[in-house]
């Protein structure tokens, strides 16, 4: 078990190094190595999930929960690998993936926050001034808020930063510890927000790479918060999480309604979905399974939308390629197949019935209701409605012709390559199918949360 668990984190690390060291001529081979590595790591994670919880090196957990999250991380690494992101970006993503795997497997708060803290530095590339500035501010935010929180946790508990030790310590110093945990939670969420905004707004990488980078960090942050609320139910930072969740959902929803650029739109959408993930933390025991499924549907819908928007960028005349940068660039609309895939992606992102995720919301809402979080439930429902309206902005642009500015000559006759359309269609069908028939996924998530202690 120890060997498999270590290999799960080591494989992305080594694959990242191989990708970073590859030359343009050896890139194809490096991709192949990374793909095989992901498949092997995925198999290892599946094997690990069959075992119960095992403690490794005193501070790491190998349990079905970690295995579930690791599988999500591996899948999110696979998408940009299949799509043609650059070797450098892929290499950094894989290194970041290894860090996220450390964060999802450890119960030591210090180790988790350190892994997540250096994640933006590893994944970012520092090419542009704006990006560098954003990354610096993110690290500062994280550094000040989270480390201050960690200090308070250590002081308050008197038992270090290991969650198991803190949990065993009872309520002594609980107030100080609670403030500290709230600061840790807030710092991690702010870190995610700053990093994601930086990736989407300033990075020149493909949209899929940006989604992957944002999602890897989200899984890491969500896993730390999940363990915090699960191990320390009496002093968990629920007040901070409630405020952060609703703020994220609200900012995301209104951001989607107001965004004009595609990348801003995706940032807002990712923020809104993160808000939903955080809200699931308020659902206590019953909220854990929906949280994992929210993570899964967040990843799938964001990837599908990003992939669809990237594919829609191909303009027909003269074979030139124009990126879709503004939402208005979606007119004239791409061909029917791509439009349908964008429809599935956009409405899946909103979990609008009958698109993926809407049935899961019932168990999430039930969890909130059973925990007495009625106000949060009502507020979240209203904001989710706004998210659906925001998602319709994409749909209305690709399914109507009127109201658009005059298309540039290169945009007329836009078409999509058959390979891209096939891949997009298969992805949309798979996501839709898994979303509509999530019973197996629910079983896996239920087992993961049931055996997390």
């Amino acid at each position, binding site marked *: 078990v120890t060997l498999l668990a270590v290999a799960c984190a080591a494989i992305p690390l080594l694959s990242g190094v191989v990708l970073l060291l590859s030359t343009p001529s050896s890139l194809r081979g490096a991709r192949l190595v990374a793909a095989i590595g992901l498949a092997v790591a995925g198999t290892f994670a599946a094997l690990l999930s069959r075992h119960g919880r095992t403690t490794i090196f005193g501070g790491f957990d190998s349990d079905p929960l970690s295995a579930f999250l690791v599988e999500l991380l591996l899948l999110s690494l696979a998408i940009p690998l299949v799509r043609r992101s650059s070797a450098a970006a892929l290499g950094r993503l894989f290194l970041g993936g290894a860090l996220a795997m450390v964060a999802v497997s450890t119960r030591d708060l210090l180790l988790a926050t350190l892994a997540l803290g250096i994640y933006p530095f590893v994944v970012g590339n520092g090419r542009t001034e704006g990006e560098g500035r954003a990354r610096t501010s993110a690290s500062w935010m994280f550094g000040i808020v989270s480390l201050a929180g960690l200090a308070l946790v250590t002081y308050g508990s008197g038992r270090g930063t290991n969650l198991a030790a803190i949990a065993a310590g009872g309520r002594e110093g609980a107030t100080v510890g609670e403030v500290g945990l709230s600061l840790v939670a807030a710092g991690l969420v702010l870190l995610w927000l700053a990093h994601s905004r930086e990736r989407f707004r300033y990075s020149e990488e493909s949209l899929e790479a940006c989604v992957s980078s944002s999602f890897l960090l989200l899984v890491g942050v969500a896993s730390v918060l999940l363990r915090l609320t699960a191990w320390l139910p009496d002093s968990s930072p629920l007040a901070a999480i409630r405020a952060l969740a609703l703020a994220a959902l609200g900012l995301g929803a209104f951001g989607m309604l107001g965004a004009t650029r595609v990348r801003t739109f995706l940032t807002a959408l990712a923020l809104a979905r993160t808000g939903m993930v955080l809200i699931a933390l308020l659902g206590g025991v019953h909220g854990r399974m929906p949280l994992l499924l929210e993570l899964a549907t967040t990843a799938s819908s964001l990837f599908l939308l990003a992939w669809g928007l990237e594919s829609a960028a191909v303009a027909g005349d003269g074979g030139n390629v124009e990126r879709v940068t503004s939402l208005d660039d979606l007119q004239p609309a791409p061909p029917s197949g791509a439009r349908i895939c964008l429809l599935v992606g956009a409405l899946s992102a909103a979990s*609008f*019935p009958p698109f993926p995720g*809407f049935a899961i919301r*019932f168990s999430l809402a*039930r969890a909130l209701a059973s925990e007495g979080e009625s106000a949060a439930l009502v507020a979240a429902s209203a904001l989710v409605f706004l998210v*659906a309206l925001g998602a319709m902005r994409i749909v209305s642009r690709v399914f109507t012709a009127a109201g658009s500015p005059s298309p540039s000559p290169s945009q007329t006759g836009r078409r999509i390559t058959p390979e891209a359309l096939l891949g997009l269609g298969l992805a949309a069908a798979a996501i839709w199918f898994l979303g509509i028939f999530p*019973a197996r996924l629910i079983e896996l998530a239920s087992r993961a949360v049931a055996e997390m202690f």
Partner: protein
Amino acid sequence: MSILTGLVWAPSVGALVVLALPGERPSLRRAVALGFALVSLGLATLVFFGDGGDPRREIAPWIAPLGVSYELAFDGFGSTVALWIAVLAPVVLLSERPPSLGRRTAALLLLAETALLGLAGSGDFVLFLAFYGAGLVAMTLLHQRPGAMKGFFVFQAAGLSLMAGLFVTCFHVAWAQTGFPSAEIGRLSTLVVYPDAQSDRFLLGAAALAFAAPLFPLATWLKESEEALSSTALLFLLGGWSLAGAQFFVRIVLPSFPTGASDAAGVVSLFAALGVVFAGLLPYRGTRERSWLPALFGMQALSLLGLLSSRTDGIVAGRLGLLQLGVGMALLGLATGGAESTAGLPLTKGGRVAAVGVVLAAVVLPGADGLPVYWRVLASLHDRSPTLALVAGVGLALLIVRLLLAVPNLARSLHRNGRRGALLMLPILGWWLWISGSGRGAARIAPPSALSKPGGLDEEEP
């Protein structure tokens, strides 16, 4: 595959076939779409006639960990509505000439038909929401302008969100009381809920209906939709989708919260009666030929008044009123739409006015047992509140005046639109006369006996 699944999903299969047809062959496209719609019509007829009075039911597990199942259950009213939708769909497809019926429009209309059939028969509220959302998306995509699309989606999605909110509270209560998750609609009426909580849930359901039906003043999207939809799509919106919200109310809210319904009926009835008056008075700024459109939410409100009645005949009248709403709107839509048609109706001016008179009579007047449907609604309302009956009666009178004022425009458009529209009115009129006139039709529409229990909606008068 069972008959119910075939009934609901045949149009969707047709939509996929239509999308997959190679090349631009409009006649073939319409023929294929029509063929699948007729398959559905045949199966709907079988369901309506072939069950010997017992509801048909089909159930299979869907998302077992959440207690969600694929359950179709057509009771008497559900099978009647399904038959109406199945009659309407071929009429709508035939109302356009093949070149005007695009691939996307045909496919979306068939998808919307599946959604409406599913709404009539869903036995699980997650499945109900799935059908509602699918229909909403299909109807939204039929809009050809972004503004109209957004307007329609905002109001309808608000209704859908409120429905989902109601279901969530019920899901939570069901899980807490039974110890296992269940999304079965039939279970909702067995839950133990305090009377004030029943009232709250009923009001939430009524609010969802107000958005989804729509009721005044939540129908501001109607004018934009009228301008942004093709005449075919508008016909389906008016005749078919206008019953979607009511399905939620009739099939789920009223049976599940009878105590709440009787407690809160006064408030909702007041808003409904005022809605009828406003529908009669409201100036319409859309196309002149369709100045009758506000009658849509006036008739919705009148039907609601019937559904909230404390008498069985009032409830039956309310249910008939809903069907009459669909029939009337479809007839008016046929009389007004199809501007591309070239063959004029070979009637004199007097004949045209007479034809319009028949259409209008179908909209507001007849119940084939001799009493006008909405008159029975008012009579049942009078027993509970004479003042409200008076207000609603004034509203109905204003609605009739509005429709009468529309006669010249209707006669002109009927003349221009030609034989096709007039011929297509015949099956609709025939269906309506048969349903409202035959004993079998009326018996199917009556609420199930379970609702007649003490404390229920339809306690008989002594």
